[in-house]
């Protein structure tokens, strides 16, 4: 070996590990970071998933503070404003001296009646602006049914004036307010539905995967029978069986049950597959030989390894529930007025004439559904990738 080669070799002998050049300083030694922190770190690096997660969070916040965020109550009808179009916000309004001053306003409407068709049309009237503001006093409500309040995030300074940022519906109700209240119902029915299917799915999937044998066979056949049922007719049948006299709350509850009835099967299959794989993992065998009871095996060793995957599957299951509720309500067999959900809102957009005169009745609720479903899907995909220990 030449001298220079020997020199290089003696340098190499001192090396403790592979040659690395750091691109950035790592904030913390990876050693003591737990698996959850690792997943969170991986998730934080996926921009699309994070943006989608932010949207999901935003939707839930909107749902939680619906009364405060909505300028009006969802059921306040004003027949004189039937199908009033959206009002644009302008930054300036005419001051008392005629000069424009800074201040938010929306135009009022001028009504003209078509003498042939006898149809009323609204034209925004810029000359008589409606001054609007933030944190204004409006219709009284109880936040979460508890705290009596009158303040709304945005609204006209004088409550009697018209304020329709996203237009009005057939009865002159504010679409924006109804959308905001609909967010609460639609988003929560997704969560509640998933919660029910989660419990069913995990319990049955775990039983099936852990014990195998005839338990497994029985549960799997049950899942197959349930998944073989045609969805829409089944929903139709079940929803039609709800007595008309039931209160909106109990209808809501029953609808939740109906949409989750079919959602649990895929979750149960997922859990079962994971259980089957993990049951024979070395670390589970090791725990078994350590003398761990079956309860301990399941709850300390197998389930914690599943939680991240379950979380991802659940996130991907929520949009199915939202779509299910929307479809049912759209068909008129799900939630019914006075309950407001995106599906109920879309019911108003069922005929072409309405869509032609008031397209906002279709556009906004449909956009909300699409945004929510996409956000959940992107977030769930990101979560699943982050939870995959073999990723990256």
């Amino acid at each position, binding site marked *: 070996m030449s001298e220079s080669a020997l020199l290089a070799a003696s340098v190499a002998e001192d090396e403790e590990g*592979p040659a*690395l050049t750091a*691109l950035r300083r790592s904030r913390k030694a*990876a050693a*003591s970071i737990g698996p959850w922190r690792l997943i969170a770190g991986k998730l934080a*690096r996926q921009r699309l998933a994070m943006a989608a997660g932010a949207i999901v969070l935003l939707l839930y916040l909107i749902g939680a503070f619906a009364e405060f965020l909505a300028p009006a109550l969802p059921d306040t009808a004003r027949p004189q404003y039937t199908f009033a179009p959206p009002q644009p916000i302008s930054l300036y309004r005419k001051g008392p001296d005629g000069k424009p001053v800074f201040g938010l306003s929306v135009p009022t409407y001028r009504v003209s009646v078509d003498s042939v068709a006898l149809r009323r049309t609204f034209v925004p009237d810029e000359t008589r602006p409606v001054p609007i503001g933030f944190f204004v006093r409006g219709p009284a409500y109880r936040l979460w049914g508890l705290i009596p309040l009158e303040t709304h995030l945005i609204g006209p300074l004088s409550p009697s004036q018209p304020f329709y940022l996203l237009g009005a519906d057939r009865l002159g109700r504010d679409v924006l307010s109804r959308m905001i209240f609909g967010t609460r119902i639609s988003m929560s029915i997704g969560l509640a539905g998933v919660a029910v299917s989660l419990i069913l799915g995990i319990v049955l999937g775990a039983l099936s995967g852990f014990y195998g044998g005839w338990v497994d066979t029985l549960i799997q056949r049950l899942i197959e029978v349930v998944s073989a049922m045609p969805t829409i007719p089944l929903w139709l049948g079940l929803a039609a069986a709800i007595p008309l006299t039931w209160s909106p709350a109990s209808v809501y509850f029953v609808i939740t049950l109906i949409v989750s009835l079919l959602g649990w099967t895929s979750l149960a299959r997922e859990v079962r597959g994971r259980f089957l794989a993990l049951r024979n993992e*070395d670390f589970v065998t*090791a725990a078994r030989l*350590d003398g761990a009871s079956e309860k301990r095996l399941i709850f300390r060793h197998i389930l*914690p390894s599943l939680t991240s995957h379950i979380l991802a599957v659940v996130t991907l299951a929520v949009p199915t529930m939202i779509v299910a509720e929307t479809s049912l309500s759209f068909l008129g067999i799900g939630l019914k007025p006075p309950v407001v959900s995106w599906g109920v809102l879309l019911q108003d957009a069922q005929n072409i004439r309405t869509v032609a005169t008031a397209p906002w009745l279709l556009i906004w609720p449909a956009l909300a559904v699409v945004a929510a479903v996409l956000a959940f899907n992107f977030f769930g995909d990101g979560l699943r990738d982050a939870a995959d220990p073999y990723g990256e």
Partner: protein
Amino acid sequence: MSELPEQVLLAVRHLSVDFTLRTHVLHAVRDVSFDLKRGTTTCLVGESGSGKSVSSRALLRLVDRPGRITQGEILLRDGAGFTDLAQLPPAGRAIRAVRGKRIGLIFQEPMSSLSPVHTIGSQIAEAVRLHTGLDRRAARLRVIELLRHVEIADPGRMFDRYAFEFSGGMRQRAIIAMALAGEPDILIADEPTTALDVTTQAEILDLIKRLQAERGMAMLLITHDMGIVAEVADEVAVMRFGRIVEQGPVDRIFHDAEHPYTRRLLGATRKLEQSGVAGRAGSAEPILSVRGLGKVFPGRRQWFGSKGGDFRAVQDASFDLYAGESLGIVGESGSGKTTLGRMILRTIEPSEGTIEYRQRNGRVIDVRGLGKEGLRAYHRDVRLVFQDPFASLNPRLTVKQVIGDPLAIAGLAQGRGLDRRVAELMELVGLDPAAMERYPHAFSGGQRQRIGIARALALDPRIIIADEATSALDVSIRSQILDLLLELQQRLGLSYLFIAHDISVVRYFCHRVAVMHRGRIVEIGEAARICSAPVEPYTRSLISAVPNPDPRAKRMLHRHRFAETV
């Protein structure tokens, strides 16, 4: 580049490959230079992560993103001149003409390198037609000839078989045939025998060596096994952390190594050539006594008609394990050694036979008759160490929880006491107790195996069943773990049932050895005798197929061949 000698077919000069990762750049290959000469075998040898595979893939421009060649030349002789492969676009026509046609590649995994949905023949024929432009019929004849070359019996019929109908060795032969389809003058074999049994390994290495000599190819063989290097190499380059630390003729590397790392690597390999245990150990009475143990996996019962065939994984296994003794169970894959170990623990229920265990108080109990509580007590005395250091530790628990789990379950220690006991155990296996709160992913393979051993020791056991406990580890780490286990045996008076496919490990580690073949124990006796003077023909073929880490005493090529009688 006319100054290169005529027999050099491929010259690598100052090759570097970087992987740009999220937080850092990994210099996987650093300033590597070597030559491949006509008719010679060059071995790149190194432990995992040394960059040997990446180097070989870089020659064919097969390095996946984010890997990138940052400097260096790969000069391939092309008529009178040279082509620099490092300059070619990695997906272009020029490099595709080199792949397979000039340089053939044999992969490590015979399972995943063949398509399961095409016949063996059609896959090789595809390679033949790509490189020669023969028509379908001529290609078929050519493939059959190639299959004959790689010693596949009845090649005409095997042409139409699928990969799952082939054994591991046959698949590897098919892959070799595929690599030869374009008649390359350079052959790269990336760990071609690592996934194979030792006797199959010997056959495949024989074949590769013979084909190389016949065709005068230059061969680059990537391996981690110094034994294989000694058996087949002409030139050796030892890699570590992306650098070639030493290179030269095989005899000089093995008998006059200059670099301390090479010497260490050789030392770790040669150490296993002798026995590491002193004399005959053990008590007069066996601590564990197995008689006529067998396991039948019943064939799948059909809905109509009769049952499928039963599979007898283990038949009539009988042996004794004495206190303080290590008994090795050696066999190739599918010989039933793992099933035997699991039956003793009763994680697989035996179909027949008896297992008797002598408790601390001298009472002998029948393990097969134990109930749930009895089995729990038995499992405290008889512990298992796993093969895979990654799968055997729960990734969601800290090291303290992993090691402390058996103690917590048995109610032997909690809180402060548990901490103290875990720290004690970690020190016992050579780990720093300060790392107690870390998660397994922060440890290397060798350290994880130590964690697994600490878990096995937690309940103060008497017998440890080590199922391939060192086969997933690098050579140098392997000898450390073996020494740790030996030291623990001395200190704690443990008995080991050491299940392994690697005979050199067993020779080093065990007092006695039982050789398993097709579910039966064919020979049992003192380790020294079995390894030097085996009686049974199967044992003889097995022992002689083990590569000898000394190029002056090649063993494998003069081995004893076992004629299979079924």
